[in-house]
């Protein structure tokens, strides 16, 4: 990322600011239907010009997902609305879009299969697969509880949400005859490089991916997309730089959205409020090519959250539908899991009349606890007590109707991270596999290095992602960067200090800057790291069904706040995304498979008037890492929706089973009608 001062002065270099004199702009002809046979296409570059399949990359890609590979362009069958079919070029965006009119596509529209529950047993959404169930697992341990006082069941749902960074996707690709250079805003330059190489069967050394200033990502910009393969292929074919900038409408239809989960849950409990067991059928709307098929199992793994529930067993399935692939969106399975758990806990509160905090405390882990799914947590009771004391729950509960939530954050620390530090001419440059795009990694890079190396932080620069400058790397997602990035950074700093010692006899900042050093390390990480968080919300709803959020509070264990102001800023931003999911964010299709959200505003992103603020608190219980940090970025998107939904539910006197909660949902529930 450019320096923050450059960014605020408008001197950032975002993808659309990358330009070459002989650059070609491209635009895509996309399927007008959610499901159709393509009878005939004429004009533009077509599937045959891109004889590749999409590789899967990014967070948590599994072998199962790898087995199902999407074409770069559809040729005989369109599996989702907005699927790219043909590509045209132009000397600028206007001309490229003019040339879209020169492409003819004849469709034979088919009935789209949009509902994942229906898709389980329906005919295949794409030809050639036996079943639409792309991932089918049982998670946890089968159990039988026959003496529970209460067995409560409910169907819960999070509809799909667009990631909606304000900068959409984009790419510029250039080829000099031997090397392909790709500029793109991304969470991981290496993930994009590896995806391109795998898809196009190119050796890694022949592709360089350079991260441009990245205007938000939220999970979207973790991997490679068909449009990037098209731009790369055309750059090589035409020997001219090729640019593609996604339009917002394209983003809404053809960029991987998050959420899209249904859970049919069942809890077994005693009158005392003790939860004996939880089971459920968890179904993820994975989209046409089974995107992020790992997410159903991942959700099931963490449903029990901070609670010591002895029995848990889930049927977790990811199901293909005639929609764009689902992908990770800030939280990526964590908010969904917490929604399924917390909604059932609140139901139990209502059934037993037990206070929401008492019930959570009763079921919290008093000692280290390993859930039946294998998730190991530290004792959570103390944290939950402290959190709600700090947020003033007991007092509020006496006179008001707060909604609360408690959750676990499991950062994606697996596979660790890489770092390179170069000392040259008295300046220090740092590259991290987990690149920054607004999270201000530069602040902790500077402060940790300054402390460790005894140098002035102002001589340190955190560089943008660049695969030629850093051999390998993972990426920024899953609340991981500060944890594994800082860990790698400190390891490489130690290496540098050792080199200085070897060269000069002793280490000092002065000795360091007198010489040139260049060290790299890929610091792998096998273990996991789990932290706790809690939220509180107060809301009202009026007769029209409009919700007014009065108060939101957060209390998270961040391990150690490496940059305290950034912690607060991250919580405030994530809280608004969480509130957006509850109030309005949605990507809904009509029965014919047409997308109802045509604009950014239609997709429900909150504006400054609609957005609530949040009072953020955190505590610091250092993690096992030398820097002490735990995860943070996704916490508000986990904890806010559940607390807020409960607050709305209590204010309106209704039961909420689905996000978003629209005014009409509230009114019709109040009037006793089913949706």
């Amino acid at each position, binding site marked *: *990322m450019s320096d*923050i*001062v450059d*960014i*605020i*002065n*408008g*001197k*950032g270099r*975002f993808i*659309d*600011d990358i330009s070459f004199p002989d650059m070609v702009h491209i635009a895509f002809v996309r399927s007008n239907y959610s499901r159709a046979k393509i009878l005939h296409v004429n004009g533009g570059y077509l599937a045959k010009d891109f004889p590749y399949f999409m590789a899967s990359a990014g967070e948590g890609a599994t072998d199962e997902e790898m087995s199902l590979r999407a074409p770069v362009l559809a040729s005989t069958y369109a599996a989702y609305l907005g699927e790219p079919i043909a590509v045209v070029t132009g000397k*600028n*965006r*206007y001309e490229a879009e003019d040339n879209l009119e020169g492409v003819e596509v004849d469709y034979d529209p088919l009935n789209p299969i949009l509902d994942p529950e229906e898709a389980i047993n329906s005919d295949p959404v794409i030809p050639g697969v036996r079943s639409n169930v792309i991932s089918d697992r049982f998670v946890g341990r089968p159990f039988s509880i026959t003496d529970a006082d209460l067995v409560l069941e409910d169907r819960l749902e999070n509809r799909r949400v667009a990631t*909606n*960074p*304000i*900068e*959409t996707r984009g790419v510029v690709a250039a080829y000099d005859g031997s090397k392909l250079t790709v500029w793109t805003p991304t969470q991981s330059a290496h993930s994009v490089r590896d995806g391109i190489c795998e898809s196009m069967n190119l050796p890694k050394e022949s592709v360089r991916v350079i991260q441009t*200033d*990245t*205007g*938000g*990502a*939220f999970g979207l910009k973790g991997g490679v997309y068909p449009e990037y393969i098209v731009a790369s292929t055309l750059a090589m074919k035409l020997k001219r730089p090729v640019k593609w*900038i996604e*339009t*917002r*409408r394209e983003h809404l239809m053809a960029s991987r959205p998050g959420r899209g989960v249904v859970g049919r849950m069942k809890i077994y409990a005693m009158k005392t409020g003790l939860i004996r067991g939880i089971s459920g059928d968890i179904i993820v709307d994975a989209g046409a090519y089974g995107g992020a098929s790992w997410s159903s199992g991942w959700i099931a793994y963490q449903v029990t959250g901070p609670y010591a529930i002895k029995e848990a067993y889930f049927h977790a399935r990811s199901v293909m539908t005639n929609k764009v692939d689902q992908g990770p969106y800030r939280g990526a399975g964590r908010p969904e899991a917490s929604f399924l758990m917390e909604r059932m806990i609140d139901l139990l509160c209502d059934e037993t009349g037990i206070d929401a905090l008492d019930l959570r405390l009763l079921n919290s882990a008093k000692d280290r606890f390993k859930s039946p799914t294998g998730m190991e947590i530290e004792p959570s009771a103390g944290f939950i007590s402290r959190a709600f004391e700090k947020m003033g729950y007991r007092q509020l509960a006496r006179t008001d109707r707060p909604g609360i939530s408690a959750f676990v954050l499991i950062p994606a620390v697996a596979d660790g991270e890489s770092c390179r530090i170069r000392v040259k001419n008295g300046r220090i440059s740092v590259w991290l596999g987990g690149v920054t*795009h*607004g*999270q*201000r990694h530069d602040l902790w890079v500077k402060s940790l290095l300054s402390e460790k190396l005894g140098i002035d932080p102002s001589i340190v620069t955190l560089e943008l992602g660049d695969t030629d400058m850093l051999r390998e790397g993972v990426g920024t997602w899953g609340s991981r960067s500060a944890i594994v990035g800082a860990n790698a950074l400190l390891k490489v700093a130690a290496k540098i200090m050792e080199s200085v010692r070897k060269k000069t006899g002793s280490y000092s900042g002065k000795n360091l800057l007198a010489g040139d050093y260049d060290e790299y390390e890929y610091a792998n990480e096998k273990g996991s790291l789990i932290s706790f968080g809690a939220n509180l919300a107060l809301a009202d709803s009026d007769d029209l069904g409009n919700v007014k959020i009065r108060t939101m509070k957060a209390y998270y264990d961040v391990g150690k706040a490496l940059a305290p*102001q*950034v912690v*607060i*800023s991250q919580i*405030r*931003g*994530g*809280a*608004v*995304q969480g509130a957006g999911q509850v109030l309005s964010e949605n990507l809904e299709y009509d029965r014919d498979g047409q997308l109802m959200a*045509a*604009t*950014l*505003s*239609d997709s429900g*992103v909150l*504006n*400054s*008037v609609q*957005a609530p*603020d*949040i009072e953020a608190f955190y505590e610091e219980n250092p993690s096992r890492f030398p820097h002490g940090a735990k995860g943070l970025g996704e916490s508000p998107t986990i904890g806010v929706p559940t607390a807020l939904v409960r607050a709305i539910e209590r204010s309106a006197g209704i039961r909420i089973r689905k996000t978003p909660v629209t005014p009409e949902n509230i009114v019709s529930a109040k009037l006793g009608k089913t949706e």
Partner: protein
Amino acid sequence: MKKVKVELKLNGKQFKTEVEARTLLVDLVRELADQTATHIGCDTSNCGACTVLLDGRPVKSCTVLAAQAGGRDVKTLEGLSEDPLMKKLKDQFLDKHGLQCGFCTSGMLISSYSLLRKKQKPDELEIRESLSGNICRCTGYGGIVDAIKSVQPGIEKERVAPAPEIQRN
């Protein structure tokens, strides 16, 4: 199709060009004048990343034809770099974490600037209403609102000329 001649004042300087009539103001600013602080975040007139001042009022330059701006005064963030109020705003945005990724920031700054020129000490609701055409996906707006609240007044109030009397033709 005919091209149109467009002559306007851009950041204090006369700017003359000939463009296709359909050229959007944002493309004149970014592509022809190479002033890239102004961004395009949507094509649906929602996000406000493309906000510029047109005759002193903030508008979405992706929803204005370059030709419509002919003969008028256009200011982008670059043109306000020496403006004392804008400098104060930027300092506060940095201090209060009024930006993360920075993509919406230029538009946010221009809307904030425009508000503070009209009203020195706006309250929270006035601030939030003035920013409601600028979408930020990172900060949750809290840091931006704090930044605007923290700007100390001291700038002369803007005078926007009143609309003319209606005339019969």
